[in-house]
Each structure stands twice: as C-alpha cells, then as structure tokens.
C-alpha cells in the first residue's frame, strides 16, 4: 500500500479495488484468487505474440483461433464458483 493511502486506506480501498481489477484483499477466497491468476495468465498469453505462436504450433490451430479460445476462457477459467455456505 503506498504511503498516500496509509491514512485514507479504509475509505478509498474499495475504490482502488474497483480501479485495479485483480488486486487481492484480506477476504479473497481461493477461487477468486485462482480465477484472477488464470485471467492474468490468459491475457498475458494473448498479449505476447511469441506465446500465441508457440501454443498454435503445439496445438495445430491457427493463431487467430488460439487467441479467440484464450479470450473465451477468460470468462470462466476455473469453472463455476463454489456454492456459498450461508
């Protein structure tokens, strides 16, 4: 947490989380964390041309198809969320 936030942290934390998608917090569940990890990884693969080529060669698909399937997987990379207990 940067110094400017130290005092106003509570009031602004929520705002910051909304601003910086993927930032963790104390009550983060395993599922949320994993989903963030996967989405970050998938977008990183799409964002690096060499990685998409690499996967396309391994899988025998066109690069465009690989990119598309990666984007599609970002919607729910780790399956549906676990049911809440309460």
């Amino acid at each position, binding site marked *: 947490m940067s110094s400017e936030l130290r005092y106003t942290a509570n009031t602004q934390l929520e705002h910051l989380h909304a601003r910086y998608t993927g930032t963790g917090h104390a009550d983060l569940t395993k599922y949320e964390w994993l989903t963030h990890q996967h*989405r970050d990884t998938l977008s990183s693969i799409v964002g690096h*041309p060499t990685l998409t*080529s690499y996967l396309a060669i391994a899988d025998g698909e066109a*690069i*465009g198809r690989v990119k598309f399937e990666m984007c599609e997987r970002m919607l729910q990379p780790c399956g549906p*969320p676990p049911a809440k207990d309460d």
Partner: protein
Amino acid sequence: MHLYNLTLQPPTAITQAIVGNFSGARQQEIIVARGTRLELLRPDVQTGKVSTVIASDVFGSIRSLTAFRLTGGTKDYAIVGSDSGRIVILDYDPKTSSFVKIHQETYGKSGARRIIPGQYIAADPKGRSVMIAAMEKAKLVYILNRDAAANLTISSPLEAHKNNSIIHHIVGLDVGFENPTFAALEVDYSEADQDPTGEAFNNAEKLLTYYELDLGLNHVVRKWSEPTDPRANLLVQVPGGQLASSDRYDGPSGVLVCCEDHIIYRHMDAPQHRVPIPRRRHPLEDKERGLLITSAVMHKMKGAFFFLLQSEEGDLYKVTIEHDEQDVRALKIKYFDTVPVASSLCILKSGFLFVAAEFGNHHLYQFQKLGDDDNEPEFSSTMYPNFGMDTPTIALPPAYFRPRGLDNLTLVDELESLDAIVDAKVVNLLPNSDSPQIFAACGRGGRSTLRMLRHGLDVEEVVSSDLPGIPNAVWTTKLKEDDPHDSYIILSFVNGTLVLSIGETIEEVQDTGFLSSSPTLAVQQLGTSALLQVHPHGIRHVLSDRRVNEWRVPQGKTIVCATTNRRQVVVALSSAELVYFELDLEGQLNEYQERKAMGSTVLAMSVGEVPEGRQRTPFLAVGCEDQTVRIISLDPESTLETISLQALTSPPSSICIADMLDAGINKIQPTMFVNIGLQNGVLLRTVLDPINGQLTDTRTRFLGTRPIKLIRVQVQRNPGILALSSRSWLNYTHQNLMHFTPLIFENLDYAWSFSAELCPEGLIGISGSVLRIFQIPKLGTKLKQDSIPLSYTPRKMIPHPSNGYFYIIEGDHRVMGEEAKQKKLEELTRQGKKIDEEMLNLPPEVFGRPKAPAGTWASGIHIVSPVDAKTINFVPLDNNESAFSIAVVPFAAQGGELTLVVGTAQDTFLAPRSCTSGFLRTYRFVDDGRGLELLHKTETNDVPLAVMAFQGRLIAGVGKALRLYDIGKKKLLRKVENKNFGCAIVTLNTQGSRILVGDMQESVYYAVYKAPENRLLVFADDSQPRWVTATTMVDYFTVAAGDRFGNVFVNRLDAKVSDQVDEDPTGAGILHEKGLLMGAPHKTQMLAHFHVGDIVTSITKVALVAGGREVLLYTGLHGTIGILVPFVSKEDVDFISTLEQHMRTEQISLVGRDHLAWRGYYVPVKAVVDGDLCETFARLPASKQSSIANELDRTVGEVLKKLEQLRVTASGF
C-alpha cells in the same frame, strides 16, 4: 563471465501489417510489426517486388498497430500499441528515412497486462480520434487534431471503461462526420463469477457496444449495446457516412460481426443480416468443428466497397453488401481464393494483396479480377428467412464450396520468413566451407521446410559461357559518357585481347581501335566519347571517330600497373617510375612533364572517380613492393608529391579508392575509403582525410587464402567494391550503412560491372575459362536460404554422425495420419458415400490438411540430405502415434552399432498432457541410413519428451522420470530410474557421467550416474522455476538455457561441489545429503540473464569463424538468430557497458519502452550487454555520437571500430 548479445538475423514473422501513404507521396507503403521490430516495406508497382525501406528495433513488444490520417490530410501516421504502457504516434520521415515519434502519451504500467490498454487499437476512419483498449475493462479514447501550424495534436485520454468485461475486439465505426463512434465486442463476467450453478456462465451474453465520443461535450458515452452471437470473435468496419459533395451515402455504416460459422451485419436500429461461412466440401471434414474468420480487410473503391475475409483454413471470401443508401438489402458471401493463413491482410490501391502469413513466407499477390462473374456459388442473406436472423441461436444450413487453385490472384513476390524455427542445428556439412551452416526446421503443417542458412549474398546467374582460353581480366565499357548501358566486353589473355560487343547477342568485333595482339592492363571510357586501352607497351587513346593516339613506353621498359578514371590516367613502369596523364578541356590526353621515381616496384595503384563537377581527383594511392602504401598528390600545385605513407604487414596485391556513404562516419557525404588488399589475404580499409590526405581509422579483415583483387563496381547506382580472394566479397552501402558480405558463388578470378538492357545492375566475372554474368537480387540480406519442403510440422531433428543426413521427426496435432485417413475413407465407402478424390488430393502446402478432433496426430520420420537439398525417405508412424524426441545411440551392448531411438506417444492430448501409452521405437539404419528398420517398441507410461545417448546406452526423460535403458532382443531394458523431477523432462545434455536435465517448469537439474551402485542421483538444481525450452552445456559446470518467456540465462555449478560429487564413488554422500529449499542439496548460480523477446528454441555452442572463438548461437521461434559472445577482457566489458549505458539514456525505443526494463522483463538483466542497442550508435546524429565518444575518452571512429570488430571476430557477419 560477461556476454555480448548480437542479433544476426532479426525476427522474420509479421504479427501485424498496415497499409497507408506513410511517406506522404502518392505511393502506398506497408508498415509491418515483426514482434519487436517495425519495418516499412515498399512494393514496387511495376515489378511487384517488395523491398524493405527501413527497419528499426523498437526494444519492446508491439501488440497493435493502426494507420491514421487526419481529416483532409494526405499522409498517414502509424499509431502503435505496445507493452510500454504508452500510446505512440509515429511519422515516417522520408528525408532522413526514419520513424519519428511525434507523440508518446503514458497511460499505465508497462508489461502486457490484463487491464492496461495496448492490446487493441482502433482509429476513427475520418481521422478525429483513436481508441486503445486492454484485454479487460480499460478503453481510452484520444482526440487527435491539428494545431495552427498543421501539427498533429493529441488530447488527454477519455475513459470508456466497463468493469468486469472482457474485450474481444474493437473497431472504429464509419459514421461520416457525425460524432466518432467505436464498436466493441465485450463479455461481462460479473454474474458468471457469482453463480455457482453455472447457469449465468451458460447465459453470458456477448455484447456489441457502441461508444460515442461526443466532441461537443468532450465525453464518451455508451450509446448502444445489444447481445450478439456468443461465438463472435472479430468486427469489421462497414463504410458509411455521407459524401460532402453529394447527398449519397458511402455505405450503410455499422459492422460485420464475424462469428463461428456465420457473418452477421449489424448496425444500430437496422435489421440484421446473417450468412453462413461456406465450408470446404471435403470427405474428411469434421462436421462438428466450427469455422472462424481470423483476418479481414475492407477495401473501398470509387462508389463501391468489398471485404475479403479469411478463414482459419486460409480460404478468402469476398463479402459484399447490397445497399440502398443507408438500408442494407443483402449480405453476400462467396469463395474467392486460397492463400496462406494470414496474421494481416493488406489491399493496396495499385491492385496488390499483401498476405503477412502467420507462419512461413509472406506473399504479395496481384488482383487479376475481383471474382465478379464466375461460377462460384454465392450465398446471400436474402436466401434465408428474415435475412438469416429468424432464429439467431440456431445455425443456418451449412454452405459449401470447392477449393481450387488461384483464380482471382497471382503470386508476384515472396518475402522469405524463417518464422517458427522449431529446432536448429549448427554444423559444417558442406565441402570446402570453413564456417558452419545453420540448419533450421521451420514452419508449420504442409508449409514446413528445412532451411540451410549460409552467411552470404545470394547470386543469380544470368548467363555463363565457355571461352577459348583462360583470360586474366575482364572489363566492360560504354562508348560514350551518357550511354545507359555497356557496349563492349574486353577480355585480356596472356598474349592478346578480345573485344566482344553487347547487343542482341554477344559477339566478337574487330575494328574497335583496341590492340588485340597484346594483353590489356586497363580499359576506360575517357572524356565524353573516347576509349582508352593500357597495354604493357603503351597507351591507346581511341577517339570517337576511331582515330588512335598512341603513347609508347620508352625502349626497354614496360607498363606494370595502371589506374584510370574518366579524366586521369596513371601508369607505373617497370623502372619503378610513375607517369601521369590528364585529359585537358580539348579532350587531349597530356603527359605531366615529370615522372616520379618510387624507388621500389609498384604492385598496385588506384585513383578514385572524378567527383561531380570537378576536373580531377586529387589523390593517388600507390602500393609498392617494400610493403608500403603511399598517397600521392595529383593536385596541380603539388603534382606527384608524396603526402602520406602507411606501412603494411605484407606486400599489397591490389588497391581501390572508392567514395562510399557510411552513415556511421558521415551521414551526408560519401567518405573516401582506401581499400588495400594484401597478398596474404588480409584487407585493410582506411579512411582518407580529404583535407590533408592522411590515412586514418584502419580496419582489417581476413578474406581468404589467396592474394586479394579489388574492383570498383556499381551496386544500386552507388559505388561498391568487389573483393576477390578464395571467396568473393561485396562491400556496398545499403540503407545508408556499409555492408561487407561474401557472395555465395563460384570463386572468381576477376570481375567487373556489367550493364545491359536485360540485366541493368549486373556483374561480369571470370572463373577459370568460364565467363559468367550474374546479379545480386537481395541486397541487404546476410543469410542465404536453401529450403527443402517437409510434410508435417517439424518437432526435432538430429544429424547422423557419419553420412550427413538429417533425421527429422514431424508431427501435426489435429491432423489425420495416412493410416487413419484410409480407414475413414473405407468406412465412408462402406456407407455408400461417394469420395471426392480431387478434394482428397489437394496439395497440403497450399490448402493445409482437414482439421480433425484433438488427440488425432499425423507423424513420421523424415530423412533428408541437406547438402543435396533432397528428401531421402519418409517413414510414417501408425496407430495415431506422434514422435516427440529422437536420438542416435551407439549401444555398447551391440558393439557400438548406431541405432535410432524415437520417443513417441499414442493418442496424445496436450492440456492436460496425457496419452494411452508412450513408446520408445528402436530403429536400425539400413541401406547406409537411407532407410529405417523397426527393431522393437518399448512401452512407457508417459510421453518420452527427451532421449539421448549416454555411455553406450539410452537415457530417456519420460514425464517426471529419468530412465536409463539398455538394448535387448525384444525391448529396451530399463536399468535405473529416478522419478523425482518437477513436471516433465524436456531436454537432456551430458558430459562424462554428468547429466543435465531440463524440466518443463523447474529449470535445469544436475544429475550424475554412479555406475558402481547403478544410481541416478540429482545433486544440484536451480533456485528459481524456469520453463525451459532449450539447453546446452557451455562447459562441465555451466549450462546455457532459454525459457518460454523469451529469456536466455547461464547457470553455473560451484567447482567445489562438482569435485565433491565426482570424488564420491558410490553416490552415497549425495543420497544422504539434506535437501535445500525442498530441492537438491546444492544450487546453481545464475551468471547471466537476458530477455531476447523471442522464445529460444535451440542453443548451440559453436565457432562461427574459422579459428575464431566459440559463441552461443540461439534461434528464436519468430525467426531470430542471435549470438552471445563472451568478452575477452575486462577493458572491453567496461567500455561496452558504459557505451550501453549512454545509449540507454538516448531513449531510442520507438514504442517508448524503457530499455533496461525490456531486457530485464522477468528477471533483471545480468552480465549481458545488448549489442543491438550499442550498434544503433552508428545511426545517432553526429553531435550525439561525438558527445558519447567524448565521455568514453575515445573518438567516434574508435567506438565504431570496436563495435565492428566485436561483430566480425565473433560472427564474421
């Protein structure tokens, strides 16, 4: 250890291409992004050849690119989205031939992140604004305008963010001069994230959203948002807006939404139109599989427009929209042609289609017709109820076409691309070659090739003819100063001279005024229309009316050496005297009254060309037997006075003065170089100071074993130098920088420029008694490629140790092998279906192969003779097996007989990795390696991704296990196993009993085999995880490896640990040592680390120059070939690192990426100097150069010399 990284061949893949008038002239150019480089290509409208105008390393990763033109402008700019967290607007400046950054606006962190824009970029077609978007949420809109001085201005960004939504694509809408609008394809995941039943996920809608930039309010609003097909992937702009001159609409506006199997026309408040994407009617087609459009291009002509969409199979479709003003009547689609699958398509106004292929060579096609009136079936939205949108969730009945050869397009040019180097070996297989060749397995699927790369320029022979004897020299000459082409070829023999005239045919002529009974020393077109011949006994000045003025040598002397230019002639006599002649204004050749005694026999002489608008060149260079070169003045005030002298190490054999442009030395004017070829094969290149005549900045280069001959030639209308020794070299200026490259051609004894109508830029040479006329088609390239086609995607290869063949394992996922294909066809015939043979036999290198479901493999072993560029044999694999690893093993149990072991797996799935069974196939070489005989198959429980010969046995990495096998009668026999590796073993290296094991995710392990106890023990590993792709042992302690994220690194084991392990005879010590950090007891230390920017697929330790030092040569997936050179001295390290520091502060990255951050993308760069950055020193403005050189306490020349020396001694390039 300190390393110097140098790129020998930059990446050749094209990730994106855009077209526009970037130079502001009428001609259109193409800008291509090659991952980490930006290049401007210019297709020649007449010849259809594509040439590179400039290429620039951006030291960052380019992710998106768009052309942009301000309203009413005539010049396009390029807007670049990258991983720098900045938007950059580039302008191509034709004057300096460089890209100029006009704007660089920072908006976020660097790196290819999820919510930092840079992935997508879309420009308003009317040139008012641009949108840059991330993979998720973030979209920024910049307003672009021009100020009073007509400069491009950029606003601060306006946000159009939408939380929790994944962006699939964005495009600028053509709305004419209404408010700029952008369309985005988005999916909101917030509900799916909250719903444990998975229902929200299944119902997630893909939204087509319009964002309108309100220019009045300076604000972006979400104007319209509607769900569209959930499998939509691409948006294409449809022309729209009213013309200013008339009330007519250009088009209906809106977008084409490309979905799996369908194309939908979509616009706000307008009915939708949907057509199916026609499929190939192939007997083996997988009907379950959808078809995607992967690239698209829209082209506007006068009053009309059309789209070319390309499917993932490579088929182009022409899509047209029938419209009545703003109302769409019909959307039509039909098959157009098949070209390689492209990453980008560009249509040029001059009627060309540029296809930037995603793998393999890039193509330029010319349109022959637009497919308007052919018999291809056309599918229109009017053929379906409610324009195909009756039930949008149900697919339209499939449409079919028959693929065929090119009909509407013809191929006019091909840009070679090594893209997708999957594996490479560096060995010297060619006879008579002193340096190794690079053999790269490139490409994918049916377009795969094995390419042999040699350092040198490709030479194209035009004519060759045998001569009656062996000539000593050859010249060509024009008759008049302003002739466009040469008229005579003059050949000098030991006892005579032959003159040939160049016309329709080349034939001998007699009455030329040349003396034919004596050999010739020099030929020159003199003055406006005279010719000159120097022979051992005199000089003949042949005037245009065939009158001959002859100057004779005094009795008892002969001419031994001569040099000439258009106005000056200098001859050296056997008495070591120089005689100087100059042409006066009447066209008379006058002898200077004095002769100059040199005191030593003259061996070589040269005068430069007469500079434009001058009477004479003021300098003469004379090389004498006493191992000196003297610069002698030809200035009228000090004629024949010696100005300066340079001592040599060997007698000179040839000298050549040439004025050549080298932007490293002087950006505006050509520099006068004195090239001195020595008898021992060394070339000295010195710079002649035009003021005081001193020789400075000497650079040396070893060219070959024979005495050097130097000849001044014309290359692209600029002077160049041909240097002939045991190899021929060409020194020329390309893109303002000096190049020095060998010619891959037969040895030449003498050569000269040659210009005729059919071959305007050629060269003529003699080798033995053969006269050859040739040209050099691809100037600027450093590697000549010879390719051999392969069947499927190559995976790995291995050279045979003795017969010079390569054994390449190939495998394609989602492709049916021959065996499976036959089975399927039989089944189809049994069902009574008719098989379309013609479709089955479509050549796979053009049309690819039909896609099969995941888990289907086609694979085989290809035996290739790379020297003859021939396929020897192809051994296909059956049972849906695919090969993953290969090794040649001399099994000690069979007396060292060479055996080929191929690791295969059956029914392999990639993610998560699984197979029904892995196999180690053991083959015996038959027929001297031309064939393979299967001895036996050994089952394994996982995919054997790495196999290697080890102490007369086989060591195999099977999943997480490392196993040692010996050969048996029916199987390989497992001797010992260690299954404690991290994820999956992908590479193996060995020295002695040490084995280096590269793991897919866990870096490199050091293992040892202890024979007495038969143990395989891991004793050291890396302290950080690494996704290893390629490794090589640098020495017994050290490993160099590349990882999947584009890094190369070097790890070393402590020598003490190494000794300790080697001294332990049984390995009991290692076995009982306590592990460190949940791993092996010892850790390796990282010595060097560097981010290349391309995935390293092979590393080889090799000496590229005969007798030179060993370097690490790596190849990258996108076609990069680079070397890591160890520095020899501490001074070099200090000097070059300081230079690198200074270069970093120049901020030369065109995408605004910080250089240090780029080279330390994942791990901070360590002990590696970026040679590519240092070499851009030559392109800096002179003032910057000298200030940096000052800081380093050197001159600019010294810095450049050092850089060149580093490159030449390490690579010879």
